């Protein structure tokens, strides 16, 4: 397995979309680690519940889209905002080594965890050398 990153961020799609619907889109902060089984990705999605979260894989592109809903009282007048969008979007291109049918996703306290396993045949293997 080479050291080159196998999960490459895909720019463009998310940005183009945000211009259409005027609502600023927030790019969530992520952590990615690789272990021998595959890749684990964590994304900060504060205010997002499972019904407002969409994780899609299409043509080797993994897309995370979510919408945050923060309950607020009626008649609220915003005075200071450091987070200026309620939509999150980020996409990555996945190398074919990964088994996209076995991706596991869980959401807890606004943190999404994605476990993306490597295909069986892509696991690093040691090849025995026979001496004839």
């Amino acid at each position: 397995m080479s050291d080159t990153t196998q999960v490459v961020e895909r720019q463009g799609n998310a940005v183009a979309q945000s211009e259409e619907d005027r609502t600023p889109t927030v790019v969530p902060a992520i952590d990615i680690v690789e272990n021998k089984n595959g890749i684990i990705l964590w994304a900060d999605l504060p205010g997002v519940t499972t019904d407002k979260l969409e994780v899609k894989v299409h043509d080797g592109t993994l897309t995370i889209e979510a919408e945050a809903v923060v309950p607020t009282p009626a008649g609220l007048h915003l005075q200071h905002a450091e987070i200026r969008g309620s939509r999150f979007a980020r996409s990555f291109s996945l190398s074919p080594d990964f088994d996209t049918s076995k991706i596991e996703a869980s959401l807890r306290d606004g943190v999404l965890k994605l476990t993306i396993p490597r295909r069986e045949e892509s696991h690093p293997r040691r090849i025995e050398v026979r001496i004839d």
Partner: protein
Amino acid sequence: MSHFYFGTDLFNELNRLHQQMPSLFPGTPSSLRSAHLGAFPPVNIGTTDDSIEIVAFAPGIKPDEFDISIDKGLLTISGERKPILSESDTETRPYAQERFVGTFRRAIELPENADPDKVQARYANGCLSISIGKRESSKPRAITVQ
């Protein structure tokens, strides 16, 4: 629909620009308590007729790990977000580390009319919502003309 995101006017835009100035031009004087950009957790602040509403976007923290206090009109939110993986873990290789890790502390100056006895804090889906009541005397009143 949440209104914690939009509806800011030109003044807020100018305010935001003012806040970003120190990071754009280091050395420019700014308010002592003005937050530098990228502080964790980001906060949005709004008001209603009855209360001051503060939302801190702090995912991945247990509710009892927050330390929230009000002292002399200053609301302080502090705590720690622990790393997901231990450093001794040699089996894993990190590719990206963008999420905030470590201790944090944010202070918010409350207006004069905030009542420190009427505070409610709630943590849900990674958002810490703090509601501070306003003193009775400061609430807007309609005055009837005799």
